[in-house]
C-alpha cells in the first residue's frame, strides 16, 4: 500500500476512535437540549462521575473494566434522575441564564466533591490484557483500545438509531423535539419523556467518561475541561439530532486528528476552524431546525 494511503487510513482510524468518544459523550447533551431547550453545563460532571465510578469499581472492588463501564452508565443514569426531578425541573420555564448558573454551579460542586474524595491527581484504570495490545491490520498495527472504541461506538449508534427511529418511545421523543406543545396536546407526557432521555443521556456521558480515562486521563476538572468540546459537537450537529451529533463528531474527530498529524504547527486550530465554517454556512448546525 502506498505511503499516503497508509497515513490516510491511520488518520481515519484514530479520528474515528476519537469521534466515537465525542459522540457517546455528547449525544445525551444534544437530545436533552433539543427536547427541553435546557442548557445543561453539568453534562461534563456526569461524565466525570462515570469516570470515577469506573476507577472505584476497577481499582478498589476488582470489577473488570467492561462491566464497570456498564455499571457506571446505569448508576450515573439513575442518580441523574434525582437531579432532574429535584433541581432541573424547577428551572424548565426559567431563562437561559438561570439554567446556566444552576448547572455550572453543579459542575463546580462536582469538581470540589471529586477533589475531596479522590484528590486532584489524575487517575488511571487497569485495562484487561486484550485491550492493552495492538491489532494487526496487515499493513499497520493499531492500539486495540481504539479498535474497541470504534466497535463499541458502532454498536451504540445502531442501538440508539433503532431506539430513536423504530420504537414508540423514539417516535415520541422525535415528536417532542419537533414541536413540544403539539406533542403534549396529543397526550405525550413530555415531562416523563424528558426524565427518561436525561437519564439515558447522562448514562451515556458516564460511559464516555469511563472510556476517556485511557484516552485523556481523569481528574476532577474533567467536568469543565472538555465541556467546550461537547458543546461544539452539539452546536455543529444541531440540537436534538442523533444524525447531526454523529456527523459532527465524525467531522470534528477526523479533522482534529488529521490537522494534528499533517500540520502539527497549526495543531488544535482545526476544530475551531471547522466549527466556524460549518456555523457560518448552517447556523443551526448540520441537522438543526432553522
Amino acid at each position, binding site marked *: 500500500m502506498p505511503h499516503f494511503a497508509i*497515513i490516510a487510513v*491511520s*488518520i481515519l482510524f*484514530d479520528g474515528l476512535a*476519537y469521534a466515537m468518544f465525542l459522540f457517546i459523550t455528547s449525544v445525551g447533551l444534544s437530545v436533552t437540549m433539543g427536547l427541553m431547550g435546557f442548557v445543561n453545563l453539568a453534562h461534563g460532571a456526569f461524565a466525570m462521575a462515570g469516570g470515577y465510578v469506573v476507577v472505584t469499581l476497577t481499582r478498589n472492588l476488582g470489577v473488570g473494566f467492561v462491566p464497570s463501564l456498564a455499571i457506571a452508565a446505569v448508576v450515573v443514569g439513575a442518580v441523574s434522575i434525582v437531579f432532574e426531578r429535584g433541581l432541573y425541573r424547577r428551572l424548565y420555564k426559567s431563562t437561559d441564564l438561570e439554567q446556566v448558573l444552576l448547572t455550572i454551579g453543579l459542575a463546580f460542586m462536582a469538581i470540589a466533591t471529586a*477533589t475531596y474524595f479522590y*484528590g*486532584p*491527581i*489524575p*487517575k*488511571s484504570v487497569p485495562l484487561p490484557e486484550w485491550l492493552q495490545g*495492538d491489532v494487526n491490520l496487515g499493513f499497520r*498495527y493499531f*492500539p486495540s*483500545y*481504539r479498535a474497541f472504541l470504534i466497535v463499541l461506538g458502532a454498536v451504540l449508534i445502531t442501538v440508539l438509531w433503532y431506539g430513536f427511529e423504530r420504537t414508540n418511545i423514539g417516535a415520541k421523543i422525535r415528536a417532542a423535539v419537533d414541536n413540544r406543545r403539539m406533542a403534549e396536546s396529543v397526550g405525550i407526557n413530555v415531562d416523563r419523556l424528558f426524565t427518561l432521555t436525561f437519564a439515558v443521556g447522562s448514562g451515556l456521558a458516564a460511559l464516555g467518561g469511563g472510556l476517556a480515562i*485511557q*484516552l*485523556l*486521563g481523569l*481528574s*476532577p*476538572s474533567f467536568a469543565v*475541561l*472538555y465541556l467546550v468540546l461537547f458543546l461544539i459537537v452539539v452546536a455543529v450537529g444541531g440540537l436534538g439530532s442523533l444524525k447531526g451529533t454523529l456527523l459532527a463528531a465524525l467531522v470534528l474527530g477526523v479533522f*482534529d*486528528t*488529521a490537522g*494534528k*498529524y499533517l500540520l*502539527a*504547527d497549526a*495543531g*488544535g486550530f482545526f476544530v475551531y476552524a471547522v466549527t466556524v465554517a460549518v456555523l457560518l454556512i448552517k447556523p443551526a448546525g448540520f441537522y438543526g431546525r432553522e
Partner: protein
Amino acid sequence: MRIIGWLGLAALAFTVGGTAQAETVKVGVVLPFSGANADLGHQIDKAFDLYVKLHAKDIAPNTVEIIKRDEGPPTGAVAKTVATELITNDKVQILTGFVFSPSAIALAPVVTQAKVPMVIANAGTAWITNLSPYIARLSFSMWHHGYPMGAYAFKSIGCKTAALAYTDFPPGKDSTEAFKTGFEKAGGKVTESIPMGSPVQVPDFTPFFQKIKDAKPDCMYVFIPSGAHAAGVMKTYGELGMRKAGVKLIGPMDLIPDNKLQDMGDAAIGTVVMGNYAVDLNNAENKAFNAEWHKAYGKDSYPDFMSAAGWDTMHAIFDAIKKLNGKVDDGAKVIDAMKGWTANGPRGKVTIDAATRDIVQDENAMEVIRKPDGKLGVKVLGTTKAVKDECKELKVGRCGS
C-alpha cells in the same frame, strides 16, 4: 481557612518568643489551588507547610504569616491580579510560589515597581530571572535539564536522531530549544519539532505520537507541564507500542513526577529523564525529607521535584529573614541576602548564583525501573555537579538581554 491556622501558630510563637522586637514577616504564596493543575500547587504547598512547621523556631523570636492565593490557570492573568492584591492590600513583604512561567513573566514588572522580592519555587522559563532584579529562583531553568540531556542522549543513550514534542507555551519552547542546542552541538540530528497545543487541556496525544512513530527517530524528547499531561503522554506512548518500534522516550523530569509514577505502569519503564530530584535520590537530607513528608501526609503521598524545590525555597526565605533579623521591608536587601546562599537540601547542594539570582544544582540522568519491592522508581545513571543555567551562560536569545 488555613491562614487562620498560621495566624494561631504565629501568635503562639510570639508568646513563646517573648521579646518586644519580634517581627512578623508577611509572605504571600501564589500557587494553583484549583483547576486541572491544582495538584502541582498542592505539591509545593505541602512542602512549604512542612518547612514552616518544622523550622518556625529557626527564626524566633520573629514569625512568618503565610497568606495563600490561587494562581489560577497557566495564563498569568489571575496570578497577576492576586499577587498585586497581596502587595497592595495585604502588604506582603515577600512573594513566593509560582508554578507557571506566564505568571512569573506577567508579574515581573509589578515586583520591580513595588520592590517586593519574588522567590520562584517552580516556573522554569530560562529568561524569567532577567526580567527583574527582585526575582530569585530556587527551582530550575528549563536549560538545567534540557541542555545536558542533549549531549547525554547522543553519547550515552544512543540517540543519533531525535524528534521533539512540546506543549506550546514558553517553558515548552525553552526546554526543546535547550535540548536541541545541546543535542546538535554533540552531533545529533533533530528530525521533527511538534507543538502539542496549549497547557490548559490534556490533548489526545495519538496523532502527534503516531507522526513521530512513522518518522522513526531513535529518540523522542517530550516536554509537557508536569501534571495531568504526564499520565497522558505515558499512556499514549505505551498504547502505540513506540518503545517496541524503537523510539526511546526521553525528556526533562517533568515526564515522571514522583507522585504520579506509580500510576504510569510498565509503559514508563526505560524512560530516561534529566532532572534535579527523585524520591529515590540517595542523600541524608532527602531521606529525612521523605520521612517527614510521609509522617505528615501519609505513606501513599510522595513529594516530587516541585516539593523539593518548595522546601529549598522556604529554606532560603527563612535564612534571609534570619540574616536580616526580621527586618525585610527593603526588598533589595532580601534579594541581596539570598545572593550566594547555599545549603544542602533534598536535591543535594544548591546555591543561588550571585550574578544571575538563579539556582546552581546537580543534574542527574535517571532511568525508570521496576524496583525489587514491585514499585516503580528511578536509577541514577550519572550526575553532573553544580550545573548553572546554560541559557544565560551562552546568552541564547532573550537570556542574553
